[in-house]
């Protein structure tokens, strides 16, 4: 009796708000989305194949480029996986561990700032973009002072760190985190209570906890639905077990809860760094690398290890054949790739204008999705 006019629209690879080259094939009825199918592969560079031809230390700059927004955590995941394979996790000096934690948490803040900037500007609020980038510039300056690069850090090595913290770096970090809480208050004053923001984000993209676990979603999308799973607490690595921080959980699993979770995570990361600084000052300077040979040749075996990157659970699966300096196979479990699978479920029934909010709230980075 009624004929439904379904239209297929291409939310193309070239679009200001797909955060990279993501193509979403939308089946819409008027403005309601019936199905949203992500099509990926536009940024595939064959990273995993490249890993098979490079020695383990040479792979580290390539891991930077997967999730190019949060490269320190990518480095950390790879380096920890190889250390686990070699069995030297316990030999990493305390100072190196603390440096790794500080860099990871700074990277988490930086990644969440970029997320907030792009999410807000997609929904129409253009000013938080510039405020977030101003803080992010300070973090990138800190990275530059430490390892020489701002974005693709290459800041960790198998067995420890490449160099020690330069003089004054820890004081700069302390200065930054002293002002950071007020900066987050500023972003929140523009968004959290704003009724327009709430209308655009409350009730959009709801995932129930069971659905989230079924889809394999991790990170803030999972915690936004109320599931208490953070690898830093559940399977602690580095020295997270000794640090005091909280994991924010959402209530309803909608976009607003994920937004609140990420804002709270930024504050908790600041708290972690605040705790690490006196701890690192208490360790002997210069003790930043375990005693391993320069040529990294792990024994035969396979290992899977995951860490909590800003986007979710970042996992590396390495098969080593014991004889060569390259991995036999290195597979990366990117959090954005798995979280993106939940997009059709989240988008069903919403309007096309909500799709940009949804892509923003899953926080995908196409470098990671496509590798």
């Amino acid at each position, binding site marked *: 009796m009624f004929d439904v006019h379904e239209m297929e629209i291409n939310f193309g690879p070239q679009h200001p708000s797909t955060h990279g080259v993501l193509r979403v094939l939308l089946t819409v009825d008027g403005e309601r989305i019936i199905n949203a199918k992500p099509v990926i592969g536009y940024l595939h560079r064959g990273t995993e194949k490249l890993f098979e031809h490079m020695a383990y230390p040479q792979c580290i700059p390539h891991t930077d480029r997967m999730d190019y927004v949060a490269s320190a955590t990518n480095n950390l995941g790879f380096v920890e996986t190889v250390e686990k394979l070699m069995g030297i996790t316990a030999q990493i000096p305390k100072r190196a561990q603390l440096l790794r934690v500080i860099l990871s948490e700074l990277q988490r803040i930086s990644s969440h700032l970029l997320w907030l900037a792009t999410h807000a500007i997609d929904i*129409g*609020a253009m000013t938080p973009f510039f405020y977030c980038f101003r803080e992010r510039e300070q973090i990138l300056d800190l990275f530059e002072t430490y390892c020489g690069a701002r974005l693709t850090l290459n800041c960790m090595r198998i067995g420890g760190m490449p160099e020690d913290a330069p003089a004054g770096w820890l004081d700069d970090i302390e200065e930054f985190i002293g002002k950071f*809480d007020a900066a987050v208050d500023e972003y929140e004053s523009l968004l959290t209570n704003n009724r327009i923001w709430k209308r*655009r984000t409350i009730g959009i993209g709801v995932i129930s906890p069971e659905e989230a676990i079924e889809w394999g979603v991790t990170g803030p999308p999972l915690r936004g639905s109320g599931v208490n799973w953070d690898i830093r607490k559940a399977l602690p690595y580095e020295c997270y077990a000794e640090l005091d921080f909280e994991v924010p959980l959402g209530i309803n699993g909608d976009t607003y809860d994920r937004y609140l979770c990420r804002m709270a995570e930024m504050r908790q990361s600041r708290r972690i760094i605040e705790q690490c600084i006196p*701890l690192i000052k208490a360790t002997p300077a210069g003790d930043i690398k375990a005693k391993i040979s320069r040529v990294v040749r792990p024994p035969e075996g396979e290992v899977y290890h995951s860490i909590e990157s800003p986007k979710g659970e970042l996992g590396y699966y390495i098969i080593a054949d014991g004889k060569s300096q390259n991995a036999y196979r290195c597979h990366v479990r990117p959090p954005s790739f798995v979280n993106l699978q939940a997009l059709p479920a989240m988008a069903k029934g919403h309007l*096309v204008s909500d799709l940009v909010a949804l892509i923003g709230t899953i926080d995908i980075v196409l470098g990671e999705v496509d590798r």
Partner: protein
Amino acid sequence: MITQAALMKYLVWPLVKFLVAFLIVQVIVAAMNWVERRLLGLIQARLGPNRVGWHGLLQIVADPIKFLLKEDIVPSSSEKIAYFLGPMLPLIPAFIVFCLIPFGPGPMFLSARVNVALLLILALTSTGVYGIILGGWASNNKYSLMGGLRSAAQMVSYEVPFGLSIVGVLMICGSLDLVNIVNYQANNAWNLLPQIVAAFIFFVSMNAENNRTPFDLPEAESELVAGYHTEYSAMKFAFFMLAEYSSMLVNSCLMTILFLGGWTIAYDGHGLTTAKLISMGTFGALLGFAIFFAKVMFFMLVYIWFRATFPRFRFDQLMDLGWKWMIPLALGNIVVTGIFILIGQERLMYWIGLATIGAIFFYLSRKPAPSPTKTAHAHKVVHAS
């Protein structure tokens, strides 16, 4: 008999006044482009355009040159006549209205004194919708069409609260003539106070009429639908932008005249009323114009301020707001104003308005509540063991 004096009085002199006003308006509109980009930049922790000329002022010259010299791409499958007519239609009412708006005290600042000026202005600005529908349809692009229709639906829906909010002002002032409304405010107080709800509705409707944030969905680049002016390049696009800024200027002028007392700064007849300004001769006239200009500029700056601060509404939320909130609120305002006038307590409305504004400033001066993302232990530090 058409005498020379009549010709001068009814044709030549108003035309001259209109042309002068029109030129000034064009200069302001061109400058607004620079002001918007610069101010937006400064709010956003960056500098706006500041390279072309002293503080970027030559940008005002560079942009029109760019528009004039750009290649004018006309889609081959578009409907030619409608395509060319599209950008011009919003411009016409935006320009004509300037002969009805008084810019200062005295007959020298008003081209045509019409005793139903407000009604005429409302009618003229409503015709601006045609250009958008025509532009969107003539582009032969289904996304432009959707964008154009949405924009048209938005503008038409917000015409209703736009008009209804003015009724409260009319009930108090008793006249549709803009000069009379300003003089009434000089004799009492600014209409902002008794009609604060109407002022708010008027301002929101103004933003929606002009497709400005938070209602700028038809222009938003990050949404799927590209908007009615996608297929227009060079000067035709510039016409749409010109129409938008002119329309913003007209609405700001209306807002000042209706709610902020126009060119007067007076209370209960004391202060700079129209009579006083006229009695001060040329200086008074210029002073009146300067006051009016300052108030209009304030509203233009508020437009930019809003654009910098707020996210945008989704389209269905926008229509929701217009039909389910603004219109009942405007109708309620009319009823309440009517009741107050009936019982003779008009002055009470002024006090209520003043109390509302006072309450807003009071709450703003206090520190906001801490955000829900902070924890109680945010500052506990683990000491090295």
